[in-house]
């Protein structure tokens, strides 16, 4: 843990994530306007004291919309990747621990899932089930577990031959006990790293979907759909597109920095 704090970039990433989370949690207290309140009179006003980041083409306060969009981005990122983690850890640990046919079946299934280009698979499914925040979360989760499953399977393959697993078997431990008490706690490190990177990816995916109109639906704000709306008024209101773009960039960067910090911490061979 101390090693993580020594990594300045990781600390930087973590503080940005913390800040974003605070902003997201206290959004109603922080934001000066209702994010969906339309005030055509103030449409496309430049950033000022009244509207910190200006307004969009319908006169909605961009700062308020951005904060609420952060809420949605983090929510989707964390829950979607959390779901992917649960599925991945569950299937991966079963595949690694039991091996044989079970392993082949699960891992071939994962291989098949990996054959589909992920973004287009998500697009296709959203087109069928319809866009909503809930659907986006579930679909990102259901299509993102394969890497996690591979990771945890590989860890467990090497861990399961350790003597403490044999000792546990001799004490009549059930498979469930061995997997949950011994194997997963020892194999979870890389999954944690993958989780953090995954959140960055999921936030990007959500922004992409919303940009295409298949994610968060207006009038609910999302960095992606603010970008899309901003595209139309690019010539007159640069701020509408600049700030959500920066928000995506900084958030994804922050998660990646933290992820890299965690990875270095867990890998004792990387000494700087």
């Amino acid at each position, binding site marked *: 843990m101390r090693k993580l704090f020594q990594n300045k970039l990781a600390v930087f990433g973590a503080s940005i994530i913390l800040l974003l989370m605070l902003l997201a949690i206290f959004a109603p207290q922080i934001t000066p306007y209702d994010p969906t309140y339309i005030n055509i009179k103030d449409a496309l006003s430049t950033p000022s004291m009244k509207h910190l980041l200006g307004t969009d083409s319908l006169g909605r306060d961009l700062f308020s919309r951005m904060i609420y969009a952060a809420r949605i981005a983090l929510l989707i990122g964390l829950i979607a990747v959390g779901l992917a983690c649960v599925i991945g850890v569950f299937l991966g640990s079963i595949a690694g621990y039991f091996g044989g046919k079970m392993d082949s079946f699960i891992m071939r299934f994962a291989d098949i899932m990996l054959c589909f280009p992920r973004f287009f698979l998500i697009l296709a499914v959203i087109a069928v089930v319809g866009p909503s925040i809930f659907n986006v979360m579930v679909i990102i989760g259901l299509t993102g577990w394969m890497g996690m499953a591979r990771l945890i399977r590989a860890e467990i393959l090497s861990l399961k031959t*350790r*003597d*403490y697993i*044999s*000792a*546990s*078997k*001799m*004490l*009549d*431990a*059930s498979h469930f*006990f061995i997997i949950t*008490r*011994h194997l997963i*706690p*020892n194999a979870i490190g890389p999954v944690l790293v993958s989780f953090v990177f995954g959140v960055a990816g999921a936030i990007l995916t959500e922004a992409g979907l919303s940009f295409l109109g298949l994610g968060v639906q207006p009038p609910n704000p999302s960095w992606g759909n603010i970008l899309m709306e901003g595209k139309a008024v690019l010539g007159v209101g640069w701020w509408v597109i600049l700030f959500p773009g920066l928000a995506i960039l900084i958030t994804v960067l922050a998660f990646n920095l933290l992820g890299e910090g965690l990875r270095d911490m867990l890998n004792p061979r990387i000494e700087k």
Partner: protein
Amino acid sequence: MLLTVKNLKVHFKHENEVVKAVDGIDFALNENEVLGLVGESGSGKTVTALSIMKLLPERGCFQSGEIICEGKPAIVFQEPATSLNPVLRVGEQIDEAVLVNRLRSFNSTCTHKGYRLNGKSQTVQNETLNLLEKVKISDPERIYDSYPHMLSGGERQRAMIAMAIALNPKFLIADEPTTSLDVTIQAGILELILGLKKDLDMSVLFITHDFGIINKVADRVLVMKDGKIVEGGEKREILSRPKQDYTKQLLDAASLGAKTYSRPRRSEIGLNHKSIITVKNLNKSFPVEKGIFKKEKEKIQAVRNISLQIKEGKTLGLVGESGSGKTTLGKLIIGLLEPDSGSVGTQKSIQIVFQDPYSSLDPRMKMQDIVLEGPTIHGISKDEKEKVLRDVLFKAHLNYKDRLKYPHQFSGGQRQRIAIARALAVNPRILILDEPVSSLDVIIQLELLNLLKDLQKELSLTYIFISHDLRVVEYMADDVAVMYKGEIVELAGRDQIYRAPKHPYTKRLLSSILSI
């Protein structure tokens, strides 16, 4: 003097903590002698060797004092498997040493690079083959073209020695060169090193933890502890009349086998020695997959038609070299492996203690959770758990105060006691001890062996004691089974095995014991 070390200090800085690995040592290596450097793990013997070879890392390492070498020394490491590059043929690696040596005597401006592989000529290869012959490897031509994984441990170590003597060293540093080898192989390597010392007129700095080896090879001995030399002198002097308490303690621990007969045999009253485990015609083989598609399958017969009976309250010693199938037999008896055919009959509960105390404890569990794993699985109440915990920790000589620590905070011996406590927590009648002391230092070994003996007496346990170390088995066992290539070649009472062995393999094993 080939080597003079004056007030050598090597300190490592690790996270604001200074570790004094070598703390002011002085010694000299004379011509034509074998100097034994003996000590427990962490005493600084290897660091001494590395600093003589200038192989210490530059960062975080502070060295002071003087090392005066005559000529460049050569070194042979403990682990020949990792000392050789797995993707180069053994011969090529020795060629490299030959070339480096020529380059060194050439001492001209031509760079290392230019001289390398393209400069490889027939003469280099001949010299390498010559070296391989010198280290008495059978079939040098085959070895020359082999990759390291195709060689046995003994052959690899011989190849390493060939590489070392290619440099025409004035003296050789041998850092535990036989520790990872079987006893019968060890004897050959020691023989070889002594022979080369004579033939090539060099000296040897022999680093080991084993007084048996010291007795066999050394002329003079230095005893190291915590980075300091506690005692030094002629071998005979040190072995027969040690002055320091620490040396005495080491010698006592190392000579445990010799004392066995003088110890009173333990009381056998109240035990009716009926057999508690019956093993019948046990067979187990492992498939070895070959070829790209893993179609060709070969079988290695790890355990071949073994039948034996284990008597209640006694210790059966299972000896054999690596690959003899002793661990497989142990795993078959407790049911961690399924036999191909045959049966193991027992009604009593069996537990196991493994060799490696680092992989036998879950690194993410606290000591109390490890010890109480069995009771937790069997679901007993909190109060009872507490009682069991106190009870087994007391039995295993562990401190109740340490119950919240994690495995990495314990020493090897303590970890092994935690593993024993974990086994005892479920009240087993039989314990399988799979090389329980092999990874420990001699003094700790003796402590643990005595603890096991006391526990056996107190709880009337039955032990199956698996070990490659004949002296340890002699100390522990009532009956001894000698395993060789999956079979039990001899099974008899301890005294008979050790005093009047019948099978030639048993005789060979016994003759390779290096006693003090």
